[in-house]
């Protein structure tokens, strides 16, 4: 004997108005999901305008050109013992306006810059010549220097650069006694540096040093970092490093070295002289017009730390500026 299922209780029966509204409910649910998802995705995309997320994958370390990896030793006399900033951070958080105005853009577009073949033009108050970058690198014993890098935007890193002192190169080039300044010019090529299509800055980027600054043993020409050749975003294949000055003084992807009698017209000090001076020595007492330079965020740390005069290299470089008004000559 089988019992047929009992008829549904009246309370379980869907009321007719609700039953007929099922379609309406589904329609509303669909509109809800589509609208919230579309709005959410749109707002998320728009909020990263101008400050895009970094690439998820950190770049791979390139191999040294020529035979085998570069041999080098760390120069302890001129190196900081502080913990190093990660390779990932150094290669994904960059200011390289020729590639992109964002911080993560240079890491995404750095591959466009082809560091070989590469030549360096040398001219001005010197015997003019054109040097192949690998020939030039073989002139010197490469060494590693762990330097603090302080960006004018109040963040800093500790970077193990690989390269040679600029003084060694200048001695080898034998400029004449009339050379009082050195000018560094970055590559001008909108194919390799696509953001040079924008007219924001007068390209190519130009930086400069006084001769005594250029000859200082701390002033360095980097060809690599963390033991590997520089990536495009870090200014491959030749990049200036002046650790007691704000990072923008470190010209990237240098194609020309010019020895000059007069102070060169450097890019930032020409376009925004109230914000960027020729000297650009790190100085916690001289604020940027839009933010304080008293402290900085070391990348990888949460709390700010005090900024040091000459980025902590005062004992080595303060004598270069004796008698100079640092507030006026910022």
């Amino acid at each position, binding site marked *: 004997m089988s019992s047929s299922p009992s008829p549904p209780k009246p309370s379980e029966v869907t009321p007719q108005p609700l039953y007929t509204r099922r379609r309406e409910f589904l329609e*509303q649910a669909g509109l809800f999901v589509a609208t919230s998802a579309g709005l959410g995705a749109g*707002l998320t995309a*728009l909020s990263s305008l*101008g400050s895009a*997320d970094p690439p998820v994958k950190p770049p791979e370390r390139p191999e040294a050109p020529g035979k085998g990896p570069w041999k080098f030793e760390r120069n302890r006399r001129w190196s900081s013992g502080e913990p190093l900033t990660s390779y990932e951070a150094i290669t994904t958080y960059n200011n390289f306006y020729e590639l992109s105005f964002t*911080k993560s853009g240079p890491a995404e577009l750095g591959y466009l810059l082809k560091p070989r073949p590469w030549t360096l033009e040398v001219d001005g108050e010197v015997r003019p010549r054109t040097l192949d970058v690998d020939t030039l690198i073989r002139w010197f014993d490469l060494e590693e220097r762990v330097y603090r890098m302080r960006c004018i935007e109040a963040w800093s890193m500790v970077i193990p650069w690989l390269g040679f002192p600029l003084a060694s190169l200048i001695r080898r080039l034998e400029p004449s006694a009339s050379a009082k300044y050195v000018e560094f010019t970055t590559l001008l090529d909108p194919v390799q540096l696509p953001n040079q299509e*924008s007219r924001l800055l007068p390209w190519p980027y130009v930086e400069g040093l006084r001769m005594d600054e250029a000859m200082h043993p701390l002033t360095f020409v980097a060809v690599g970092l963390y033991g590997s050749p520089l990536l495009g975003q870090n200014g491959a294949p030749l990049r200036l490093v002046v650790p007691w000055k704000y990072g923008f003084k470190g010209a990237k992807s240098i194609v020309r070295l010019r020895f000059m009698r007069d102070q060169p017209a450097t890019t930032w000090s020409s376009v925004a002289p109230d914000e960027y001076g020729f000297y650009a020595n790190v100085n916690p007492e001289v604020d940027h017009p839009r933010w304080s330079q008293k402290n900085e*965020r070391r990348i990888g740390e*949460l709390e*700010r730390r005090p900024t040091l005069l000459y980025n902590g290299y005062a004992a080595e470089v303060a004598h270069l500026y004796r008698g100079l008004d640092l507030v006026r000559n910022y």
Partner: protein
Amino acid sequence: MNQRSRLAWLVPAVITGTLVPFGVMGWRAAQGRLGANPIATALNQLGMLSLVLLCSCLACTPLRLVSGWTWPARVRRTLGLAAFFAVLAHFLVYLVLDQGFDVAALTQDLAERPFILVGFLALVLMLPLALTSTKRSITALGYPAWSRLHKSVYLVGVLGVVHFYMRVKKDTSLPIAFGALLSLMFVVRFVAAHQKRRARRLRARADLDLT
């Protein structure tokens, strides 16, 4: 079926949608995916989100005027409150995470750096608007007074764009784009108000002629 129940999904959808960017940012922060300088990234992204939400809130009325649709008016308050929360989050990231709750640094920044003062003013002006965003406040204040108070959201928009313009280094294209958008919305409102006044004048004259 009336209009209200047919659009019942709209406001919940806008609330959910505006929460998404906050959620994504928090999730990315927890995953360590805001880059080498996560505080700066969060600060910049919240600032951008603030401007986008503020502009979408300001766009509601011009959009209604141009299109004749009424739904933009329904989502205006939600967008305005979302903009307020984005601005508040932007300010708190600056004060707490970036400056380490250093009130002396905040007062110095306010005194010496106009762009920070301008941004701070925008936040202060938004506070009464957020607090009087309820229906009860409209009744309590009376619609004309409430409406006059809430007109200051246009000033907030201008301050926000000026703050952004003063902050960027050299590439002013984005702040200028926001400024252009804001101006366009002002023009729409201005033209609409002018037409309304003119229509009212004409009607008044027509009434006179009849008598």
